[in-house]
C-alpha cells in the first residue's frame, strides 16, 4: 500500500525533473539576445495596452461553483459502485434516492439559469 504511493511520488518527482532537464538543456544550447520588443506582450502586432489581469466574465466562476457541488457528489458514488452488489436492493434504493436528489439539484440549477451562457 505504502509502496504504491512511493511509485506515485517517484512519477511526480521524475516528471518534474525531466521536464526541468529539457529546459536546462535549452538554457545551455540556446542563443540569447535582448531587445525591448522581444519581451513585449504579444497582441497581434499592436502595442499592448493595459493589463490582462482585469475583470472577466462572472459566468466562468459560476460554472466553477456548480462543478464543485457535483464533483463532491460524484465522489460519493464511487464507494457505492464497488460494494452495491453485496448490499443488494436496499443499497440500490438508497442510491436511487440520492441520484434523484442530484437530478433535482441539476434541474434547479438549470431552471435558475445557472447553466445558461449569455
Amino acid at each position, binding site marked *: 500500500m505504502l509502496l504504491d504511493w512511493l511509485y506515485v511520488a517517484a512519477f511526480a518527482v521524475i516528471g518534474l525533473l525531466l*521536464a526541468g532537464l529539457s529546459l536546462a538543456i535549452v538554457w545551455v544550447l540556446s542563443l540569447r539576445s535582448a531587445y525591448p520588443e522581444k519581451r513585449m506582450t504579444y497582441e497581434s502586432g499592436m502595442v499592448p495596452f493595459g493589463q490582462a489581469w482585469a475583470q*472577466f466574465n462572472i459566468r466562468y466562476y459560476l460554472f466553477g461553483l456548480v462543478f464543485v457541488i457535483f464533483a463532491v457528489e460524484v465522489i460519493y458514488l464511487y464507494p457505492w459502485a464497488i460494494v452495491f452488489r453485496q448490499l443488494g436492493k436496499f443499497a440500490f434504493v438508497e442510491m436511487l434516492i440520492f441520484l434523484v436528489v442530484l437530478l433535482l439539484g441539476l434541474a434547479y440549477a438549470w431552471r435558475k439559469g445557472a447553466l445558461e451562457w449569455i
Partner: protein
Amino acid sequence: MNWGAEIAKAVLAAVGMFTFLAIVAAMFGVLLERKIGGWIQSRLGPKHVGPQGVLQTLADTLKLLQKENVTPRAADALIFNTAPLVVATAGLMGWLVIPFGKIGETVLVVRDLNIGILFFAAMASMTVIGILAGGWASNNKYSLLGALRSASQMISYELPMGMALVAVAMEAGTLSTVGIVRAQDGWMGSFVFRQFPAFVIFMIAAVAEVNRIPFDLPEAESELVAGYISEYSGMRFSLFMLGEYAEMFAMAAMTTTLFLGGWKGPLLPPLVWFFLKMYLVVFFMMWVRWTFPRFRLDQLLNLSWKVLLPAGLIWILISGYRITF
C-alpha cells in the same frame, strides 16, 4: 522490504515511462497526426526529412531545443515558468495505472493501484491547474481567455467522465484497472457492449478533456491566436504539447482498458492487442479532429451540462437496476 531497491525500481519505471511518452506519444503522435491530417485532406503532410518524412518531429525537437526561452516582461515569471512542468507531469502521471499487457501471469503495469480509475481521473484533471496558471501568468488577454475557457470546459466534462467511470466500476465491481480488464471476458464481454452509453459519454468527454477539435475553444487559433500557449515558445511550448499528447494517448489507452477489453484478444500477443486497440482509438480521435468544425462556447457547455450529465446519471440508475435485479 528493501527500500533502496524499490526506490531504484520506481525511479527507473518513471524515467522509462517518460521516455516512452516523449517518443511514442509526442514525437510519433505528432507525426501521425500530420500524416493522417494530410491523408484526410488530400495532401502529403511532412515528406522531406528522412524517408517519407518520418524524422520530421525529431528535426523539430532539435530545432526547439535551440530556441531561447522568452519570458514576457509583464508576466509573473515564477508561475509562468512552472506551468509547463505541471502540464507535462500531469500527462505522465495517468500512465501509472495503465496495464499494457501480460507476459505469462505477470501484468505489465507500473502499479496496480486499488483506486486505479479514480486516480486516473484525478491526474487527468491536474492539467487544468497548469493551463490556468500558465494562461493567467502570461498576462496576455488571449492567454487569459484561453485559460478560462479551458478551465470551464475541462471541469464541465470531468463530471460526465466521472459518471462513465462510475458505471464501469459498477459493472466490474472494482476500481483497479487490472481488475476491470479481467472482468471483461471474451468478445461480447467487453464493456463497450454492456456499457455502450458509458462508452459514448467517455469518448466525448475524453476528446473534450484533451482540448481537441471539436472542443478546442481554448486554443481556437482564429480568435485567440493560440489561447493559453500564446506567450510560450521553444521548449516550454513543446512541454505543453508533450503534456497534451501524453494525455490524449492516456485517454486512448484508458478507453482500451475500460471498454475494449485491454490486452485481451485471440492469436496475437497481449501487448500487440493493446497497442492495436489504443492506436485505433487514437486514429478515431484524429479522424474527428480533421473532420469536424469547432463548437461555440454555449453549445459546448450545453452538451456537457444538459445532455451528458443527466444522461450519465440516468445510465448509472439503469445499470444499477439491471445489476441489482
